[in-house]
């Protein structure tokens, strides 16, 4: 019985250690891949408050695209939202995309109204179902911000052959 217990302890330690090491390694590899992927604005869609699907790369490409992952309950997000609401004119120069995890539409709308987010032109709020944001952008920390500029060498969106992305997050 005692010998069995000893073997069980050793096996349990090996299993736990092996599982932790494997999971950590896999997460690091996945993050590396996502790290490369987020360098350019991805072709992915999230649900709008009306229920339709909206692709984040289908906004006006002449403007920078700012993607903010937020939660109405998060204090930092509330502060960030209040600053965006106050500087509505400045933020209207960008495509503002605010994405929140599966939350009640009522709560999200109340959040937007409270911080005057609807005052910002080009501001869209989208819902993230099933941790899609984390899979696409590699983070689920509130708030997370990704900023994309499409650098167009010929100052025209019609000549897209030389386009390249600049990203900040």
């Amino acid at each position, binding site marked *: 019985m005692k010998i069995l217990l*000893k073997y069980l302890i050793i096996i349990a330690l090996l299993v736990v250690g092996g599982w*932790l090491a494997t999971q*950590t390694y896999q*997460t*690091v590899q996945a993050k590396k891949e996502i790290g490369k992927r987020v360098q350019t604005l991805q072709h992915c869609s999230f649900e709008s408050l009306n229920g339709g699907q909206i692709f984040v790369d289908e906004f006006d490409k002449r403007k920078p695209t700012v993607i903010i992952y937020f939660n109405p309950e998060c204090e930092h997000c509330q*502060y960030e939202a209040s600053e965006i609401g106050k500087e509505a004119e400045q933020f209207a120069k960008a495509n503002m995309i605010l994405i929140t995890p599966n939350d009640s539409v009522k709560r999200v709308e109340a959040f937007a109204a409270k911080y005057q987010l609807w005052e910002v032109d080009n501001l869209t709020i989208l819902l993230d179902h099933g941790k899609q944001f984390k899979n696409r952008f590699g983070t689920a920390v509130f708030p997370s911000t990704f900023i994309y500029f499409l650098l167009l060498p010929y100052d025209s969106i019609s000549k897209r052959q030389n386009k390249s992305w600049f990203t900040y997050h």
Partner: protein
Amino acid sequence: MINYLLGINRWMLFFLLIFFIDFTSLAISYLYLTSSLYYQSLGEQLTVDRIAKLIEFSQKWQWLGYLFIPIVVLLRVSFTTICLYTGFFLANFKVRFKDLFKVALLADFVFVLAGIVKLVILIFFKEVNTLNDLQFQPLSIMEVFDRTKVDAMLLYPLSLISVFELLYWLVLAWLLTGLVEKSFGNSLKTVATSYGTGLALWVLFVMFLTVNLT
């Protein structure tokens, strides 16, 4: 010497340990955690209002941090005790849990020494300009690297590999020679296989949490 140390009441050791750790924490907080340090550290990232709120919040809840120190120490000492107890159990040695607990309590004073050395370095040898300057681990491998360029996942393991961690292992092994009929070398092997394994698992767990939560 070992018998004298092992004869000290464990509650007295525990409260002495808490007193010294609280003292060094309070001293660092009193000497360095000033409002201006917060403004210097966070001035480029947050507005003045936000920093003021942050200072107010940290001052309001500072007592909670001190309240957690005994709990953290108890968990750390219990962790070492469980590792050692498991090691002795697997090696067919009969040692009482409470005796190993006392060994772990005594060895924990090494971390008090680490705290005092940190305080001395801060006072006499290091210029503190930002909150990051307070996060250093004295005499650890981490000090060789630039903290801002090291992967977040490696911060904890690199901070752990230090002169004080080595000293902790040596003190544990030395104290164990007073508890079991073993040479210092054999005791050190026991510490390495029992506490070392536990520590390796703990480091893996912290790395796992770091990569998943950041």
